């Protein structure tokens, strides 16, 4: 490598290292950072949504439509799952620390046919289950966590959104 090129490359590497160190010390999503990252994250989400928006042959994707949860925000759902500690009993991919084995894993929930072996697996069924599990399955070990219907919709949106489908 030529001397000038080495110096430029070295300075660039140094700048990269310093930036990385500064990034590591900052709390997540501090104000200005959020303004930069949020539009990028939105754009990425839109690309993913377009990709998943339907089969290539142009016909409507009834499976996907059946899974859409109206008024459910998967982001809020993820926060609620962390707040209510669902991971104490269930393994939930995408939630830090959720690897419980008391109840079944919730990975790829959208592909299931039934909710808890009782209710059909569609947005209404899952939401109803989450609002009061013992009402549907009196012998279940899953307690009534006191979720409102809105909270249940957010959680359902998250569970359907992860892992394809």
């Amino acid at each position: 490598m030529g001397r000038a090129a080495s110096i430029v490359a070295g300075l660039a590497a140094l700048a990269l290292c310093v930036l990385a160190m500064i990034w590591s010390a900052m709390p997540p999503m501090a104000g200005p950072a959020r303004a930069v990252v949020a539009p990028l994250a939105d754009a990425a989400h839109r690309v993913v949504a377009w990709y998943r928006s339907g089969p290539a042959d142009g016909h409507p994707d009834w499976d996907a439509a059946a899974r859409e949860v109206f008024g459910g925000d998967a982001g809020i759902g993820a926060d609620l799952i962390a707040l209510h500690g669902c991971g104490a009993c269930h393994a939930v991919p995408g939630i830090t620390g959720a690897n419980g084995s008391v109840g079944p894993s919730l990975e790829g929930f959208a592909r299931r046919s039934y909710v808890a072996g009782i209710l059909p697996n569609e947005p209404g069924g899952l939401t109803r289950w989450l609002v009061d599990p013992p009402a549907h399955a009196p012998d279940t070990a899953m307690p009534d966590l006191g979720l409102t219907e809105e909270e249940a919709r957010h959680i359902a949106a998250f569970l359907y959104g992860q892992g394809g489908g």
Partner: protein
Amino acid sequence: MEADGGYADSTLGLWGAQSSLVNAGRGADAILPLTIGMTVAFGVVFVLVLALVWFAWRRDRPAGHWWLWSGGIVLPLVSIVALMAISTPTLRALVTESDDALVIEVTGKQFWWDVVYDPDGIALRDANEIVLPRGRPVTFRLLSDNVIHSFWVPSLTGKMDMIPGRVNMLPVLAEETGRFRGQCAEFCGLSHPRMAFEVVVLEPDAFDRWLERTQGEARDAARPEIVEGRNVFLDAGCAACHAIRGVAEGARLGPDLTRVGARGSLGGGMWRMNQGTLAGWIADVQDMKPGAQMPSYNHLSGPELRALSAYLASLE
């Protein structure tokens, strides 16, 4: 002590809850300037040394012996004297106990914290969450009856080990209200990473009210559907290890559960406290916290587990 979701607050996910750079106690307050001062001073020394290396590399005239004397002897000597002069009085202030301090005895267990407020007086027993009054001196009496642990709340003060056969005292004076996080800081076995705890600092009168409220028997079975949970507690043999004042007295092998529902977190600062996590804990504690002394109670039926966890969540 209630926050959104109907659950008590917790330090989980709280940025800076366990940081020695956040000083909410007199000890941490005394140490932080030392930390920052040393960082700045030694940072300058470091940069000077690097500059000297650069300068020496390019220099043509040989160095004189005064380089060794000043850099190798005088500079360290000056730094050392300054350091000792500042840190010795700070140390003295850190370890000096107040005569009128509230004594809280904490025994480190594998892997939880057995807390007794005023052990020579009212001897109020609790676990894993410690409530302190703001502005009033507290002395922690630190013990262990198993392996070595270390009691550390970085936002309040430095740490102190809990060593079997020894009693260590740690004076603390909380200066700000809020919720802080502590963690065991001496490797103590399999679930050492999961041995944290919460510290809640209240205004003095709020603390007095809390202390008043926490003493006495369990406020349980407020609703009829909760009564069944108490029966499960007694039938399943939980009272062999866990005490609930007024329901099952005497057992000290596990944490006291009289006010368990009021705590912000479960399992030593590792999960938010609510009925769901309680159920998960009871059913499979060994998966959540391997090596804990409590076996997994996975032989309870679904309704029994729900009743028991609802009962415990109601004990505030």
